């Protein structure tokens, strides 16, 4: 049954991908990309990777669609006819695909318990996690502690992306300020003239925020954690910005607060790492944070997940505002 679902979803995925490449209308391409992410999320879910599915759905299908639309508002809706020949690109893609297909001939069969990935590191995590960290969601334990250094890196990838967008979009001095001035003069973006989205949206915002907080603090028990929660919380504010106008959102969370939030989250994560060194253990070793190593690990994971959530929501909102400010300029 799982196989059948998988094949069905993957077939849809290929069809969507071809449609994205073929369409000339960028708006259509953005919508299809949202569907593409949702299909991947469903696929991850079928494979029992609920944490990844949640992230993909929130970031891929949700936030990136909004950001793509923000970028689209700054350019045109239609793709320009390509000036270069596409033959070479097509040849490279076909070759790479064939090579990957060739590689799959010797791969372990789907769901094989004797596959190498189920024999080496993964069973060690399952076996030893209860006595080392003791939280029900082993995925969070692996991401937050065993491979916490990778997660620290990913947080900084998000921060770097935020720094990059702010740096690039602030190139014309004062563009943001002028834009906000124009917004005050009347022509505002968003849905504030449409009654139904406003009413429904307003009702949804608190629930999305609440769900975001649930996902943030429930990451140790079920699927979730800082990345997903950060995306959800950012989504709530973006929705608010769409129905009430960007300006009112900035009154709630000004740009400087967002920058502090993004940088502060990354610093909080780093500080937990440094605390490990100061307490006489390795960087990012949470066991020494409390008298009992297991409690220390759990505290460490809660703290770093908070840092992740802060940075992800801060950066996503900064990027959204940067695009919106540019849009009105």
């Amino acid at each position: 049954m799982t196989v059948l679902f998988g094949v069905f979803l993957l077939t849809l995925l290929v069809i969507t991908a071809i449609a994205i490449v073929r369409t000339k209308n960028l708006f259509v391409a953005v919508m299809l990309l949202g569907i593409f992410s949702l299909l991947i999320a469903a696929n991850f879910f079928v494979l029992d990777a609920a944490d990844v599915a949640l992230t993909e759905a929130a970031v891929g299908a949700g936030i990136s669609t909004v950001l793509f639309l923000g970028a689209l508002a700054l350019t045109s809706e239609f793709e320009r006819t390509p000036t270069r020949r596409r033959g070479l690109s097509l040849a490279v893609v076909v070759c790479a695909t064939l090579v990957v297909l060739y590689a799959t001939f010797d791969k372990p069969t789907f769901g094989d318990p004797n596959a190498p990935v189920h024999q080496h590191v993964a069973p060690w995590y399952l076996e030893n996690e209860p006595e080392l960290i003791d939280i029900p969601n082993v995925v969070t334990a692996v991401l937050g502690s065993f491979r916490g250094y990778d997660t620290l890196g990913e947080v900084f990838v998000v921060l770097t992306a935020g720094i990059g967008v702010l740096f690039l979009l602030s190139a014309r001095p004062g563009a943001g300020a002028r834009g906000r001035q124009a917004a005050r003069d009347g022509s505002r973006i968003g849905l504030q003239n449409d009654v139904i989205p406003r009413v429904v949206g307003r009702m949804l915002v608190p629930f999305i925020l609440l769900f975001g907080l649930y996902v943030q603090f429930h990451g140790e028990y079920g699927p979730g954690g800082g990345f997903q929660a950060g995306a959800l919380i950012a989504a709530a504010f973006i929705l608010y910005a769409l129905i009430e106008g960007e300006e009112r959102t900035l009154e709630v969370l000004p740009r400087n607060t967002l920058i502090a939030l993004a940088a502060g989250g990354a610093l909080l994560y780093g500080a937990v790492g440094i605390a490990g060194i100061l307490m006489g253990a390795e960087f990012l070793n949470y066991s020494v944070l409390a008298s009992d190593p297991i409690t220390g690990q759990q505290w460490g994971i809660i703290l770093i997940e908070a840092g992740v959530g802060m940075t992800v929501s801060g950066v996503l909102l900064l990027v959204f505002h940067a695009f919106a400010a540019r849009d009105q300029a």
Partner: protein
Amino acid sequence: MTSLEFHLPALQVAVPLLLAPVVVLLRPRGLAWAAATVTSLMAFAIAVAMTQGILDGEVYRYAMGGWEAPYGIGLRVDRFSALVLLLVTGASSLGLLAGKQSIDRSIETQRQPLFYAAWLLVVAGLAGILVSADAFNIFVFMEISSLASYVVVAGGTDRRALPAVFKYLIMGTIGATFYLIGVGLIYMMTGTLNLADMAMRIHEVSEQRPILVAAGFITVGLALKAAVFPLHVWLPNAYTYAPHAVSAFLAACATKVSLYVLLRFDFVVFQPNLLGHDFQFAAFLMPLAVLAILVGSTVAMFESNIKRLLGYSSVAQIGYIMLGASLVSLTGLSASLLHIFNHALAKGTLFLAVMALAMRFGQLDLASLGGAARRMPWTMSAFVVGALSLIGVPGTAGFISKWYLVTAAFAEGPLGYFLIAVIVVGSLMAVVYSWRIVEATWFAPEVQANPVTAETTIGEAPMAMLAVVWLAALTNIYFGLFTALPRALAEGAAGALIAGVP
């Protein structure tokens, strides 16, 4: 080992990484630069401290979070890592020390904190790759360093920086994705991400298709990021339109880090386990290396913009590095690693001198630089020292690596004679393209009407900048005369890498 020394591998990454978000928040004028420079110098000091330990026979290992590899992420710093770490942190420090006025001119004050934060993230990302012993962790830090380098390259004043950076971004992302596909395939067949563990476990499955495909994807992906011919098309424009200080920093070390991963992955994981891999490696890379030397140098001979000329020269120099490695011998590999070090010194000096030149000249093509050296003799003398090292004149650092390369090729028999011919021809071409710049700046009649701003009178570059440019130039002479440090690191590293080859 003292407690601080024990933490050095982690601090090498953590110091620049964690200070980057702090720099974002430093608004007052000049403070972000000062903080970034101090951080970069601290990172350099850490690299020097570890190099000293390594020369005393230490190999630094670190278990992140206290979890032993392969369950946690391990760090490992040996001679090869130390060699490239010195370059990354050194080039960053010199670029920042010399680059303040140049960066002030191209980037508005309120955007500078973001720029310097991105610069530190490049340092942290590259350092993270170099200290890591984990294939996926390398990918994570590759993402940080790549994203951050797109940001700093896009800081150039020329609008053409944006298309250049977009090309760099697309090519870099494809390269990183190929690497990730390869790592994923290996993980599927071995269940581990730690490089040493991978090298052990891959043995049983080494003849299976996913591993062969993984070797292909990883090699091609990293070659793309390292700008190995013919995958170099992103490089010349990215270096040309980047802010001058960024060109100096990235030209000295960015592609070298990708070469580091390529060589480390190949010699640690694939060479010992895959049957006939040494032959495939040589047969794939040697022709590309020869073409890189010949084509890169030829294009450089006809290029008129100094920065793009130096960019194409880098394509050729990467060819020398790959040529040494493709011999799969101890001397060849030593030559390759030495050239990583020496080329960074030469190209770093040249780009720093170009930055000083750009303080006084708006256009950097040969036609508008006529007689520049008569107005800026110190700057252009430093440039000549860098050029001599690039060519490989005895007494400069460049000579040492070329000498090793010729020695290694000589041991190969008839094929080696052909390779020596290529090296000699390539060096002669380097003489030609360097001479074109020297001729234009020293001997051509002076060109008027090319000052960078109306009120500048064309004179020597600012003293502080000139001092750093000369510091870089002198390293070329120092390491040409006293070769103990780079040779100890390169030969030791080559010995360790080649030990796995059957």
